[in-house]
């Protein structure tokens, strides 16, 4: 009985994720900072999982970053969201696959508002019609792309070329997962495991052989803060929040950090460099940082995608130590090359990570 009750309670923390036919809503931050991740998501969905995902050139930003910087009226946000829904309706799709956690929060906020305040939906419909002549149906399902990867995690595991096992020790790699505030803190029912037991990333990590690190500041914000990062004079807030997380996770010696939200992935990568340069402090072994990956990059690595096709070279913290632990075969000389091996030079190695270069073992 006790077990049955637990199973029933746990069911309240699950969400329905469709099996196929998605309308892809891209992310401003992911496209700018992790372009290989969006490319990999589509490749995994189409080539590895044989799923149909429509990549519509006519959709736009959700305007979420400007909205949370308080530059846009709520009515504008709702109407832009309504336009995306209209494009879905026109192309015959009912399932949104959202690449960005901020956008996922935005669509959730708009749809929940419309449930509680139907007059807001009516206003959005009228504004959209006046501005564009478009009409829409409310999507049947809004999933974050990580929900979809989570949904197919066992299928991905079945095709795994590599697993999250340290090739040198035979033990599971220790992985920090960072969910991102707008995934489930605003609307817990919209995320797998809710706000308390978010399992969207931990489910992937465990399915692929790794061990999830539970540390005190696991659910603390990365510190984006919208206006608190975008304005140069405010960035101390942003780095301070990330630093709080790094200090908290450091004693557990994580091998990697996996992120749900593209903004969080960017900050947890870049702020390690900033803290290294400001304080001489690095959080990995020796002079290394802790590699920060998106979930698409992790899924791609597991399936045997080339790390430089996935875009690991655009990270500020070197990912090679993780690749070596997993046993990924890669060509170090191709890291910063362009198409067809074109020489693009390479970035300057920051002083804070300098010793790390000497420790990197060619794959």
């Amino acid at each position: 009985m006790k077990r049955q009750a637990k199973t029933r309670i746990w069911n309240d923390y699950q969400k329905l994720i469709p099996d196929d036919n998605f309308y892809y809503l891209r992310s401003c931050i992911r496209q700018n900072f992790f372009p290989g991740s969006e490319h990999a998501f589509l490749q995994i969905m189409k080539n590895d999982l044989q799923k149909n995902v429509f990549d519509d050139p006519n959709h736009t930003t959700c305007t979420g970053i400007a909205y949370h910087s308080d530059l846009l009226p709520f009515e504008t946000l709702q109407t832009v969201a309504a336009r995306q829904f209209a494009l879905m309706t026109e192309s015959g799709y009912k399932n949104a696959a959202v690449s960005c956690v901020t956008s996922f929060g935005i669509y959730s906020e708009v749809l929940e508002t419309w449930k509680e305040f139907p007059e807001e939906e009516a206003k959005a419909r009228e504004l959209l019609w006046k501005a564009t002549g478009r009409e829409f149906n409310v999507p049947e399902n809004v999933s974050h792309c990580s929900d979809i990867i989570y949904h197919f995690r066992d299928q991905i595991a079945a095709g795994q070329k590599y697993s999250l096992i340290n090739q040198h020790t035979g033990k599971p790699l220790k992985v920090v997962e960072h969910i991102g505030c707008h995934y489930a803190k605003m609307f817990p029912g919209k995320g797998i495991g809710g706000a308390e037991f978010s399992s969207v990333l931990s489910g992937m990590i465990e399915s692929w052989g790794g061990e999830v690190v539970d540390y005190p500041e696991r659910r603390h914000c990365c510190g984006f803060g919208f206006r608190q990062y975008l304005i140069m004079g405010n960035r101390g807030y942003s780095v301070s929040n990330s630093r709080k997380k790094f200090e908290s996770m450091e004693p557990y010696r994580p091998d990697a950090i996996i992120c749900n939200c593209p903004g969080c992935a960017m900050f947890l990568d870049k702020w390690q460099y900033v803290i290294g340069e400001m304080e001489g402090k690095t959080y990995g072994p020796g002079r290394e940082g802790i590699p920060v990956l998106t979930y698409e990059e992790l899924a791609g690595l597991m399936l045997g995608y080339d790390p430089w096709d996935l875009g690991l070279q655009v990270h500020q913290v070197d990912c090679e130590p993780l690749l070596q632990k997993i046993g990924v075969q890669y060509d170090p000389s191709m890291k910063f090359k362009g198409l067809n091996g074109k020489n693009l030079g390479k970035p300057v190695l920051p002083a804070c990570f300098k010793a790390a270069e000497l420790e990197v073992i060619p794959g």
Partner: protein
Amino acid sequence: MTLYEQLKQDVRFIEGLKACMNCGVCTAICPAAEFFDYDPRMIAVEVQSRDEERIEKLLKSETIWYCGQCMSCKTRCPRGNCVGLIINSLRKLSQKIGYFTQSQRGRQQYALKKVLIYNILNHGYCIHPDCLKPELHPEQGPVWKWIFENRHEVYARLGAHLDQDGPGTLRKIPGSVLAELSAIFDESGATEFLEKIESASQAKAKEMGLMDEDGGMERYFMHVYSSHES
């Protein structure tokens, strides 16, 4: 209409403040409360007072600009309030009335508008690689500098279609689509709202002696973008 009545016109205010019992859980969980002189519990207390003078003081203050919009307060409030949403409604009203230029952090709205709204209406993205100039983003480090300087080649290597027609990562958003975004801004009140931010900021730049000789706003932009709190 009183300030409180104006706040009540925003559904986010209605949703964000049901009845605060002053427990302070929001302050305990708030990242901004840890690093700033900021107490979300007091935001709820002040607006709940319905005291016009106290609300006006809040609208002119630095305080309302500290929230980082993580919405952690929403998860934890035992009464289902969300100070982050109250903050949205306060910031909107502060800008609508023009009070935002009375605080150093409020004045930053000009720089945010200049960058983000330009990107949305001209590129269709909140962020575009062309605007991420390394000198304005030293925290992005040398790898970003390398990407920025080789951006067309680097994005192409990663399967992106930077500034190209058709679908794909960082594709060029068609002009007809950008026109729809502009029309949405006009119809839904964004254009009018943004003009208020612009005119109030210009008046403040003049008052502070930060307007360019040719009447431009570059000096004011750099001032509000880069200066730390006094």
